[in-house]
């Protein structure tokens, strides 16, 4: 029993590592204040679930289809939003995620709306059924490590250097001949692709999804994980994801109804976020994002 609970936490931590590292690629490395990450996660979850439920499509094909769709949507989304700067980009991507959530709620003939999708099959990869919790935990570990390695290689590559240059000073990057628009669109597409993989991974684990899984609260959570862990550090994102997954767990054992505990959980995230921004703005591991604003002299 206790092992099942711990393995469940491990599986969830792996999910958040996938979501947080991929979001950090956009926010921490490229400087894109993306508040729509959860929409890509939703696209992945719904695509592979619907393909599996309606057509019996195997997990890995469904997951790749969802990820590809998310990447295309991310790339297209960059056209209207990437020319926007800072706050406007944040609003644009936030609006996008609200649109996706409302499509999930209202396109009832496809998504069953608020009723959600029950009975999503557990994955089976090349005949190997991932049907028990320990197997799923191992699967999650493999996925998370894979995502981590891919992202770490990308951000250390010349392409990753261009992304960081764009974050620091886009105009200067342009005068060095960098097609910054294209680089940002690709970074957003890759970030979306990985988030969608996370969505499929989660949907086929819980076997039931509904639109409430993909609300703004989820966005705030993974955003907090990035900030607490430290922007522009993949290791920081892993730390942030694990910490914020585990931290509210003890609340579960308090003698309160679950509605109160849900609120306390949000309050705990908010408190941690405030503490980190006040006393350790660079996050647990990571570069100092807020320094730029503190001593505004350096440009």
């Amino acid at each position, binding site marked *: 029993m206790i092992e099942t609970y711990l393995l469940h936490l491990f599986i969830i931590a792996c999910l958040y590592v996938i979501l947080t590292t991929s979001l950090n690629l956009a926010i921490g490395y490229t400087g894109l204040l993306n508040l729509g990450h959860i929409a890509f996660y939703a696209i992945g979850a719904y695509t592979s679930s619907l393909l599996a439920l309606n057509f019996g499509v195997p997990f890995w094909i469904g997951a790749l289809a969802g990820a590809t769709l998310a990447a295309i949507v991310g790339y297209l989304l960059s056209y209207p939003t990437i020319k926007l700067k800072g706050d406007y980009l944040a609003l644009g991507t936030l609006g996008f995620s609200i649109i996706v959530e409302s499509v999930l709620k209202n396109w009832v003939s496809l998504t069953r709306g608020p009723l959600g999708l029950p009975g999503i099959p557990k994955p089976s990869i090349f005949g190997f059924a991932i049907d028990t919790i320990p197997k799923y935990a191992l699967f999650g570990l493999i996925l998370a490590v894979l995502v981590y390695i891919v992202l770490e290689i990308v951000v250390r*590559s010349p392409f990753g*250097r261009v992304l960081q240059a764009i974050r620091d000073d886009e105009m200067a990057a342009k005068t*060095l001949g960098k097609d910054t628009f294209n680089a940002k669109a690709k970074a957003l597409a890759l970030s979306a692709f990985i988030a969608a993989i996370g969505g499929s991974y989660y949907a086929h684990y819980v076997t039931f999804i509904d639109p409430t899984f993909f609300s703004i609260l989820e966005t705030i959570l993974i955003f907090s994980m990035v900030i607490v862990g430290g922007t522009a550090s993949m290791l920081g994102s892993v730390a942030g994801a694990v910490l914020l997954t585990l931290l509210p767990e003890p609340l579960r054992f308090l003698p309160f109804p679950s509605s109160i505990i849900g609120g306390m959980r949000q309050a705990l995230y908010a408190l941690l976020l405030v503490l980190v921004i006040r006393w350790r703005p660079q996050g647990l591991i990571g570069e100092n994002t807020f320094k730029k604003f503190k001593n505004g002299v350096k440009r």
Partner: protein
Amino acid sequence: MSLTVKNLKRSFGGVEAVKNCSFKVKQGKITALIGPNGAGKTTVFNIITGIIRPDAGNITFKGEPLIVLQTHEIARLSIARTFQLLKLFPKLTCLENLMIAHPGKDEKMFDCFLKPKKIRAEDEAKRARALELLKVVDLERYKDEKAGNLSYGQQKLLDIARCLATEANLLLFDEPVAGVNPIVRERIKKLLKELKQQGKTILIIEHDMRFVMDLCDEIIVLDHGVEIATGTPAKIKKNKKVIEAYLGVDA
């Protein structure tokens, strides 16, 4: 002729920053663009590099029209610049600031997986070249320091080095020696002369007249957004209009 600017116009609200400005920059020479504060010099640089669109006028570089192009496309025609207000990448190291300027292939996202060996070799070459340039500006010690942590003068030098790292043929320097101590100033002067020897075309904005008169083959004077004189340093020094507008009597 390397760069030709013709009838350039640009206003900001009511301010006519550049009005009907025309001049030419000769291939392989060092040309200075001088004039009082607010004369429109930096704005001209911004228009050449595609950062600001002109209201009217034309710019050609080696016969190719520039104003229809975007900033990164202009840069790829082998034009590089520095900025009056520094625009380094503060969170990248000094070395990375130079490596990124290297005119290698466009950095593709998946190249690091598809051809890791080639990428690594290319990056090594960039690193070697960047180290050489850091030596030239005497910042070798700071190679792994974040650019944002350098002093103003050091950042100025790094910006110049980054401009050189592009290996561009036309180099635009916006006040390269403003706020820089005399020793470093001499070093920059020497560096610019060497670049000329290598066949680069250089256009500098600078208020330090001794520096300009010493270094430049030709001077273009802007005042209130118009070109008022062009000529050799000797000629410009004696030009009445220039003395009135900018140099003063005792220059």
